[in-house]
């Protein structure tokens, strides 16, 4: 019964808003899909077919109604080498494999891993993405005629100033139409979209990529597919969270993983490249009133309709207009508030954010940047928690017994501090180490305790360890106490 309620809510609760927003998104998607095809080094039709297939399929199968997925910069950037070295057919095969990996990720509920990606890493990811989109435009801006600069400047001006005039027409579309009109009217000799390769003239058809089904092929495409799948899921889950926040509604992250996978498989078989959710387009969708699954279906279908009908005109769009749109996407993607926040946030989170950006810009691989960011934030976290540790000691009145009272978190990062806090040179008959208020999280902590006991014994002291059972309870993996306030209290008591 709930299924029907959910279906109705996801599809039919906002028909007018979804259709209108879908049209706006479709218009905004055309230049982006072409632009990202350029980045990947394939014909514009690959990106356009992909955008159609992914937008429609993920709207139906995904877990986040109102989110827009299509061919994206993040995935396009990862394909460059594969396309250059092996050609389009291998890209299609890699896209299908990418989709299968993502479906698998959905089934093993990999969405849960998102919680290890901190906000600083996400900010770094977004900023790096914006920088990469911008850098991809640079070749179009180097060594070109002054007319091109003028066109790009005019395009940016229209995109930013036109909304002040009216907000009922998408301004990027106005910019593209104006610049295309100007180029044709003045007969300007400029690079156009038509020069980049084939545009679609018909609906996409089902085709199996023309690659040999051998281990050699797998060896070529697997590394790309893994990186594509990881980056695609990361951006999709991140975008889903953004849409969750904007619309104040929850979403099913694991279904989203599988849904992204299905859309990429479909895209690959329809001759499209791999893609994922788009932060910018999803924000535009919500801003234009889109909330339901219908918006994605309308966006994808209308995009394909426009391209097939208007293909001839699309080929006349000057590259300068596309560059202007891409620069806008780049500016819109960048998190400008993160620059302002650098002063307010702790240094460690800024370091994580900047390292993520640096690694991505250096390697052109968002996945590597995220891995570095996650590792760094883990290390910073460990070093912070390691400070939650103190040792108090007292000597008995007769000077024969030394008692150490250990409090706090003992694990690999604080084990050394633990040992340093004990005075092995002191001559006493008996040493009592009370760890009843400490938590021994891992084997390093236990090893440190062992070492301490052995050292004291070698100095001739009798050693008694108090409360080890309580302290080492945290060592047991999968101790699921977070739902049991009493157990949590017992475990962390005294701090």
């Amino acid at each position, binding site marked *: *019964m*709930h299924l*029907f*309620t959910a279906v*109705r*809510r996801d599809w039919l*609760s*906002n028909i007018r*808003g979804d259709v*209108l*927003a879908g049209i*706006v*998104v479709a*218009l*905004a998607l055309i230049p982006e899909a072409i632009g990202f095809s350029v980045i990947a080094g394939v014909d514009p039709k690959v990106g356009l077919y992909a955008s159609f297939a992914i937008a429609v399929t993920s709207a139906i199968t995904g877990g986040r109604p109102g989110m827009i997925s299509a061919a994206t910069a993040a995935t396009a950037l990862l394909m460059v080498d594969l396309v250059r070295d092996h050609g389009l057919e291998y890209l299609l095969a890699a896209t299908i494999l990418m989709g299968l990996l993502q479906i698998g990720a959905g089934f093993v509920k990999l969405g849960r891993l998102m919680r290890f990606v901190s906000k600083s890493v996400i900010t770094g990811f977004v900023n790096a993405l914006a920088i990469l989109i911008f850098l991809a435009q640079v070749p179009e801006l180097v060594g070109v005629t002054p007319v091109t600069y003028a066109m790009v400047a005019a395009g940016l001006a229209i*995109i*930013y100033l*036109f*909304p002040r005039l*009216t*907000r*009922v*027409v*998408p*301004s*990027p*579309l106005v910019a593209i139409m104006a610049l295309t009109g100007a180029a044709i009217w003045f007969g300007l000799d400029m690079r156009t979209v038509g020069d980049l390769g084939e545009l679609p003239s018909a609906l996409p058809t089902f085709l199996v990529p023309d690659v040999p089904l051998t281990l050699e092929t797998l060896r070529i495409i697997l590394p790309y597919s893994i990186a594509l799948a990881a980056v695609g899921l990361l951006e999709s889950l991140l975008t889903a969270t*953004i849409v969750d*926040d*904007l*619309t*104040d*509604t929850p979403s099913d992250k694991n279904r989203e993983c599988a849904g992204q996978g299905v859309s990429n498989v479909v895209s690959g078989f329809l001759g499209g490249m791999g893609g994922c959710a788009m*932060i*910018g387009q999803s*924000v*535009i969708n*919500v*801003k*234009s*009133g889109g909330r339901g699954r219908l918006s994605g279906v309308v966006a994808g279908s209308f995009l394909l309709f426009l391209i097939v009908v208007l293909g001839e005109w699309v080929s006349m769009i000057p590259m300068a207009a596309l560059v202007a749109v891409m620069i*806008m*996407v780049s*500016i*819109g*993607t960048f*998190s*400008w*508030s993160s620059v302002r926040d650098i002063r307010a946030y702790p240094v460690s989170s800024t370091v994580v954010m900047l390292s993520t950006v640096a690694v991505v810009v250096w390697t052109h691989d968002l996945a590597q940047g995220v891995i570095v960011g996650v590792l760094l934030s883990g290390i910073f976290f460990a070093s912070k928690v390691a400070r939650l540790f103190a040792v108090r000691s007292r000597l008995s009145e007769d000077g024969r017994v030394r008692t150490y009272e250990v409090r706090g978190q003992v694990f690999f990062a604080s084990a050394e501090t633990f040992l340093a806090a004990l005075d092995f040179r002191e001559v006493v008959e008996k040493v009592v180490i009370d760890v009843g208020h400490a938590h021994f999280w891992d084997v390093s902590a236990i090893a440190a305790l062992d070492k301490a006991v052995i050292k004291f014994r070698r100095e001739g002291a009798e050693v008694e360890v108090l409360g080890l059972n309580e302290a080492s309870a945290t060592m047991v993996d999968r101790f699921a106490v977070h739902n049991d306030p009493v157990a949590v209290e017992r475990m962390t008591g005294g701090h």
Partner: protein
Amino acid sequence: MPKVLACVDASVYAASVVDHAAWAAGRMGASITILHVIGRKDRGGLSDLSGTLGVDANSNLLQALTEADEVNARLAQERGRALLEAARARLQEHGVTRVDLLHRHGSFVETVCEAEAEADLVVVGKRGANADFARLHLGSNLERVVRAASKPVLVASRGFRDIRRLLLAFDGGPSSWRAVEHLAAKPLFGGFDLDVVTAGADTASSRDALEEAAARLRHRAGAVEARLIPGEPEAVIGNHVRERGIDLLVMGAYGHSRVRSLLVGSTTSAMIRTCLVPVMLFR
């Protein structure tokens, strides 16, 4: 202690829902929970189709949406609280004192499904505030609530009329047997005169089922009259309600699949629509 869940909104049915709930609670010795749900549907209409992403588009949009939602939600909250207080006051006039108020955000159907778990009877109006545009048109939420609910649902008509005579529309299906069990066992319906009517062809099996149902109901106080009337259920029951001055129609609901009901329409919906009396539905 049994509990009646009364769902009110800004429609004209709210007062009648409260009256019906008061009647049912009085007969069952139940307390009443009044529920008002603030829907999410019409929130945050920003008409910006410019398709541009400015600087910090995401956080600016979040701020704008939050502000818009905040204003709308605050209005909806005040209106909802006024509705609930009005309902409580009306119940006090009826002499019902054990009243709880339940004010929730979310989808109406989902919220009712959550709340009915603790209730024994759900009372809703034939139409909601969003469906007041056409007379004789059923609220879109009604069918979904009835289909989703596990408890009997009392569908309030436009105004409350004192209830003396009941009609059980009996078709032999599992849900109408549940209606029979309820009528036979529960205090809500004790002491009323009861007509049991099966509409359709006079076959041996339908006559047997009708006789058996009537036999199950005879031990309760009040007269029981069983009849088998040939014809379309909708017309037969509708006529019977009018001619005999029936005050409350009892029936099993939505015995057929949702797909069938989409294609050929549902008998249940048709009866709720045509009979201008409250309807008690069992699934």
